Structure formats: structure tokens, C-alpha cells
């Protein structure tokens, strides 16, 4: 059995989730507190991947990042980044594709905290950053966990974007979802079944773990 597409999927999901977390915390805390006029526009942009067909997203990535275009060319020449048919391209596309799944839970969590909590930290002399790290983020731990898991699972399950921008290069862009399609095309149902079963089990376990942790079942069990 060829484990490569599965490992690639997990690597892609892991890297994407980590970068998304770093990116989404400041973005979500801005969205949760801002009174800016641009907030609705920003919220729309963040939510777009929810409704847009992944192929549309993939198509525009393909156009924008193509070395034949000004932006793609600039990326290639100045940063040495080739985003078409490469793993880094998949990461960038996945970040945008899974952005709402990370931002929404964190934003909702931060909005639900009573403002007096951070005000209490401010009058105690704590900076905004310290307050975020020591008070707000620990308080919304369940939301963070939800965001991490949804973004991870969503990246594992992505197909259209990857196919458009990544293609089907073994070891580079051939992730499990593509491999399944590939095997079915070749009428190799046993191979497709192998990848599918592993993905099925992984996603079930991840989601189960979230519900166990956020529902407090584990805590009760350990006691």
C-alpha cells in the first residue's frame, strides 16, 4: 500500500492549521472588537470560501499565481516562490480555503467574553497582548480547539482547490483525496477503498476527540 498521499495530506493539513492559527488569532480579535466601517467587507471576504465552489477559488489562484502573470512572476523572481503545482502553493490555497473555519469559532469565542474581563486586566496594568495571551485565549480554549480541528479536517477533505492549483504530482501535490479520484479513474477500487477507509477513521477520531474534550467527558472520566 502506498502511504505517501496520506502522509502528504496530514502534512498539508498540519502546516495549514498551524499557519492559520497564527494568522487567525489577530484577525479574529480585530473582527471581534473593531467598530471599523470595513468590518462587514472583511467578514464577507473571510466567509467567501464557505459558499464559493472550490474550483472557482482554484481557478483564480491558478491565474494569479501563474508565472506568466505579473504577481506570479514577482513572487518567483523576488521570493523564489513557485505556487503553481507545488506544495507551498497548496498551503497558501488551503489557508484561504479553510480561513472561515478557523476565524469564525475564535471570533465567536472572543465576542462572547464579557468586556469587563479584559478591562479588569487593563486596570491591573496588563498590556493588550498580555491580556490576550494570559486571559482571553485560555478562556476561549474550547473555541480554539474547535477552530483547529475544523480547519484541519476541512483541509484533509479539500479536493477542488488542490486539483486546480496542485495537479496530481506524486509526493508533491497528490494528496489522499486526489489519490482516491485517481484510483477510481483507473478502476482500482481496492486502492480507493484503502485511502477512503483511513480518511474515514481519521476524521471520525478527530471529531470524536473534540466532542469528548469540549463536552467535558474526559475530565469526568479521569476523575
Amino acid at each position, binding site marked *: 500500500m502506498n502511504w505517501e498521499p496520506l502522509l502528504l495530506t496530514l502534512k498539508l493539513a498540519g502546516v495549514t492549521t498551524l499557519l492559520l492559527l497564527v494568522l487567525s488569532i489577530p484577525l479574529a480579535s480585530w473582527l471581534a472588537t473593531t467598530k471599523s466601517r470595513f468590518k462587514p467587507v472583511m467578514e464577507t471576504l473571510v466567509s467567501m470560501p464557505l459558499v464559493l465552489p472550490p474550483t472557482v477559488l482554484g481557478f483564480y489562484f491558478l491565474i494569479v499565481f501563474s508565472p506568466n502573470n505579473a504577481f506570479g512572476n514577482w513572487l518567483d523572481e523576488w521570493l523564489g516562490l513557485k505556487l503553481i503545482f507545488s506544495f507551498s502553493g497548496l498551503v497558501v490555497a488551503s489557508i484561504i480555503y479553510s480561513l472561515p473555519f478557523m476565524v469564525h469559532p475564535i471570533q465567536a469565542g472572543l465576542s462572547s467574553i464579557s468586556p*469587563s474581563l479584559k*478591562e*479588569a486586566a*487593563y*486596570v*491591573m496594568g496588563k498590556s493588550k497582548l498580555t491580556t490576550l495571551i494570559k486571559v482571553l485565549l485560555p478562556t476561549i*480554549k474550547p473555541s480554539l480547539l474547535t477552530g483547529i480541528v475544523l480547519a484541519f479536517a476541512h483541509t484533509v477533505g479539500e479536493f477542488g482547490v488542490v486539483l486546480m492549483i496542485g495537479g496530481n504530482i506524486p509526493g508533491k501535490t497528490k494528496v489522499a483525496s486526489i489519490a482516491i479520484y485517481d484510483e477510481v479513474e483507473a478502476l482500482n477500487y481496492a486502492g480507493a477503498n484503502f485511502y477512503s477507509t483511513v480518511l474515514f477513521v481519521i476524521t471520525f477520531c478527530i471529531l470524536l476527540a473534540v466532542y469528548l474534550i469540549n463536552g467535558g467527558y474526559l475530565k469526568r472520566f479521569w476523575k
Partner: protein
Amino acid sequence: MIALRIQKKLDGPNGDMLLDLDIQIQKGQFVTLYGASGAGKTSTLRILSGLLQAEKGKIEVNGTTWFDSATKVNKKPQTRNIGYVFQDYALFPTMTVEENLLFGLPKKGDQKEVTTLLEMMELVDLKDRKPTTLSGGQKQRVALARALVQKPAVLLLDEPLSALDMKIRLKLQDYLLKVHKTYELTTILISHDIGEIYRLSNQVFVLENGKVIKSGTPSEVFLNDTISGKFKFKGEVLKIEKDEVVYLVTVLIQNEVVKVIAAASEIKRLTIGDRVIVASKAFNPVIYKIE
């Protein structure tokens, strides 16, 4: 000394309202802000602490300027060194009682300060508990202890006792008096409870629609119209019944329901729902202690 002269437009309950204050508070005073909801009491505390910014004016505390719209001075809340007890206590839910206090300790602060406060507020047995497992009165004590960890010069209390029952209230009032004296604080309290105000404070500002309409000692503010020694209460008529030759009028006074005898001539002018004054002139009331 606190000198507060500020103006700020607020969204009051009846549309826009101008909060326009000019008050001085001497060091070591225990001051109460009294007034209806939406009169601007909480906004006053928030402006003083820097959580809300006034449009015009100047705030000076113990010789330092905290805010001055003319010279664009505006100290951040982080640097004003204020102890603030919020209405909802604002305890950090992920930290234990002790960690909540330690979080407030300044970088060069002494850990002993936390221990002292835990002992003083009788929180030692609760120090490893999370806030969600505490009762209202216990949360209140933690919030108060936490506000004092950074040794503030000014303590602000936003209706800290309003959610508690009478017995715990009285006990917490003792704690408040104790810390006010021990830490030589200037304390500003928001309260609706006249009894509480009498017990705790030596100066009252009555706010109405963003302005101070009355100020002075609690006796000066609250006793003015009853100082004649007459025994009278305002109430609402709930029921009028005929009993033999007289009438019995049931009146709601605050939370107490009382029955008053009235003659037929007096009843003529009364209907259910009327606001009335129940007064006694000739008899001396008797006082019993209740526990």
C-alpha cells in the same frame, strides 16, 4: 485628592445625554454615587479609570494629571493604578482564586501581599478553587482582594453588593470598611441602597441625567425632608375593603404590605394604584432589633 471636571456625550435611556461633572474628592474619603439607572454613574467610574474617554475636561489625581483635553494628556488605564471591582466581578475563569490575585501583582510586587489579602478576606481555604465554583459573596471577596493587590490609591466599586442577600451584604460592608481604612484608600462606590450608603460613606453625590443635583454627607442628602421627626412613608394602594364601620386600606411600602384604617370620608378620594403617604403624627414609633 481627585479633581474631576469632565464632559461627555452619552446614550442615555432617554436619548442623548450630556455627562457634565465637576467634583472634588479629598484623599481618604469614602464617596458614593447615587442615582437612577442611566444617570451616568458607571460612565463616571469608567472615565476616571480610563476605560472610557471624556470629550472635554481634566482629571487630576493626587497632583498628577490623568487626563486633560486641552493638552491632550490621556494616561492609559494600565498606568493609572486603580482598583476596580466590576458589577459582574470579572474574575478570570481559567485561573484559581490565588492565580487571579497573583495576576494582578505588579512585576516587582511582593508575593506576601497576596497571602496577606487572602488571609484578610478569609479566602485561604478557597485559594485553589476556580471562580465558577464560588458563591456570589465569595466571588465578591476575591474581586475585592484582587483589586487591592496592586496597592491602588483609588478604589472604584460598581454596585459590588447589589446581587447579594442582606446578611452577606452586611458582612461584606465590614470588609469594605476594613480595607478602606487599612489601605488608606480613596474609595468611590456606586450604590442604590441607602442603608449601605449610611454605613459606608462620608460623602454622597446624587446624579440625575448626567449632573450632580445634590451632594453632602448621607444625612444631609437623604434626611432633608424627613428631618421634622414625622414618621411617614410613601406607598401604593393595593386594596380597599369595608370592615364594619371603617375601611381597611392595604398599602405597599417598599417591600412591606401594611394595613391602615381609614374613614369613609378619606376613602372617597382613594382608588387602587394611587400613590399615597402613610404618616403618623401623635404616636412615637417603637424600634425592635431584627436579626
